[in-house]
């Protein structure tokens, strides 16, 4: 079972401050980390490997430090690329890299926790022409098929697809392992390959990113009906 895990390195969101004059995010000096659900995807891949054998390749949009972390967790090798594109561009880059690699299964986090756009997994599967199973909270491999339980709005759905397939995982699927010192030291023997694909066309341009005014509204409501109305509109 050869597994590719797609990983995005993101800013540690808690450390991002706001430039009070421009309202722009200040990202200079902010630490980076592997996006949370991508870590769940890697953990799941490692568990599958431990059970069924095979290899785990971490395909990382980001810097070497993220690759080291993935390798420390147990990935066999890492490929890194520069992640400066929109979802269309990123999915196109990933597909281009993956086309040259043999795989049975691709795992992604269901979304990155900075963008939360839920796009990469479905887009990548579409480009590669393989089935996609999204929002997965449990998964198992059986006879060249992947059987999953998906977390949907008000129900869980058990579904299956033939391999090769792409699965996007939810946070609840597992608790990612934390690499120990020895695993970290061992990882320095593993290979990190850097690839630099041509910058693909983007579908969307971002015009601005501005802080949301965090000032509380401090509106005092007169009656419960009004309160109920506010609650209904705010809860969605």
């Amino acid at each position, binding site marked *: 079972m050869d597994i590719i895990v797609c990983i995005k390195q993101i*800013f540690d*969101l*808690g450390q*991002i401050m*706001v430039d009070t004059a421009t309202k722009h*995010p200040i990202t200079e000096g902010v630490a980076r980390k592997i996006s949370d659900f991508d870590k769940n995807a890697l953990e799941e891949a490692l568990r599958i490997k431990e059970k069924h054998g095979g290899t785990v390749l971490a395909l990382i949009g980001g810097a070497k430090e993220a690759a080291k972390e993935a390798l420390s967790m147990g990935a066999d090798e890492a490929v890194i690329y520069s992640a400066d594109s929109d*979802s*269309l561009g990123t*999915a196109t880059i990933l597909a281009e890299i993956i086309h040259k690699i043999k795989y049975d299964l691709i795992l992604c986090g269901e979304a990155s926790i*900075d963008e*939360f*756009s*839920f*796009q990469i997994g*479905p*887009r*990548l*599967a*579409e*480009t590669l022409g393989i*089935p*996609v199973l999204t929002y997965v909270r449990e998964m198992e491999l059986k006879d060249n098929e992947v059987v999953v339980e998906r977390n*949907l*709005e*008000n*129900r*869980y*759905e*058990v*579904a*299956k*697809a033939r391999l090769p397939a792409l699965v996007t995982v939810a946070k609840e699927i597992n608790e990612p392992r934390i690499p120990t010192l020895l695993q970290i030291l061992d990882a320095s023997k593993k290979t990190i390959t850097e690839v630099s694909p041509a910058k693909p*066309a*983007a*579908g*969307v*341009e*971002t*015009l*601005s*990113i*501005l*802080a*949301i005014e*965090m000032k509380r*509204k*401090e*509106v*005092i*409501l007169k*009656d*419960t009906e009004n*309160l*109920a109305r*506010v*609650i209904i*509109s*705010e*809860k*969605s």
Partner: protein
Amino acid sequence: MIFTFSEDYETAIEILAKGREIADSLRLELAAISIIKHDDIANTYIFCGADKVYSIDSELHADIVVDCLFSLINQHKPEILLIGGTRLGKEIAPRIAQKFGAGCVTDCVDFSLEHEKLMVKRFVLGGRFIAAQRFLRNPQIITVPPRRFGKKLDTARTGEIIKTSAKLAEPRVQVLEIKDKSSQMLRIEEADIIVSAGRGVKKKEDLVLIESLAKALGGVVGCSRSVAADLKWLPDEHWVGLSGHKVKPKLYIAIGISGQVQHIAGIRDAKTIIAINSDPNAPIFKACDYGIVGDLYEIVPKLIEILQ
């Protein structure tokens, strides 16, 4: 032309209302796509703003929806595609976008037009920032969160219903079983809606009020320091505050919580804070978005009644 699609009826008519506004500004036609067995809602879609409804008699399945939309887009070349931001919607929108080499913006919370071009906004960087984005080409594919926008109904509207069928390939993902969700272990840091109890609640038994409200809203129960640490009415995993759990829900309702600084610090990342307290001078009213001064024993039961 603008296409709308959502498998969720409420969301479908919300995006039709939004789609109508955009269609009117850009002088475009608005077509709803309905994929359902035994379609009986096409007329409603017209009342809710559609000029046309393409009605496809089919089971609902992500692979089928992608195929149907793909062939309709190829035929009609719409400029804009509005998709209900359900879990299904957020899977199919990027899939379709990728097929057309197009951009997609999910969970769009604001639309505006600049020089006849659509500008959309969405929350980014953990929800603390808002990004304004524009599409570089058509189709412009957007998902809209459910319950974000209002709906409009005009039973005098007329339009055209076109029964159509798409050539459907066998879905590659096979659904084996559907299970109902049952209650799960509490992880308050991850909750979207938290209803929290403070010292304003007089007896442990009265926490049932808070629990019922939380249940009515599909949220979880939190509490202040005193309820967890002093009174020990609720275990620590419910404790919200600097020493308890820092939370970041969409909606935080503080009931009978005065709003000590440690508590306020623990809810700073909440999107909206609502306070119910009998003391008009309680500090929580300076730290909330909406507040109501009054007896929680009157307000909460009434609220539950309305919400149910």
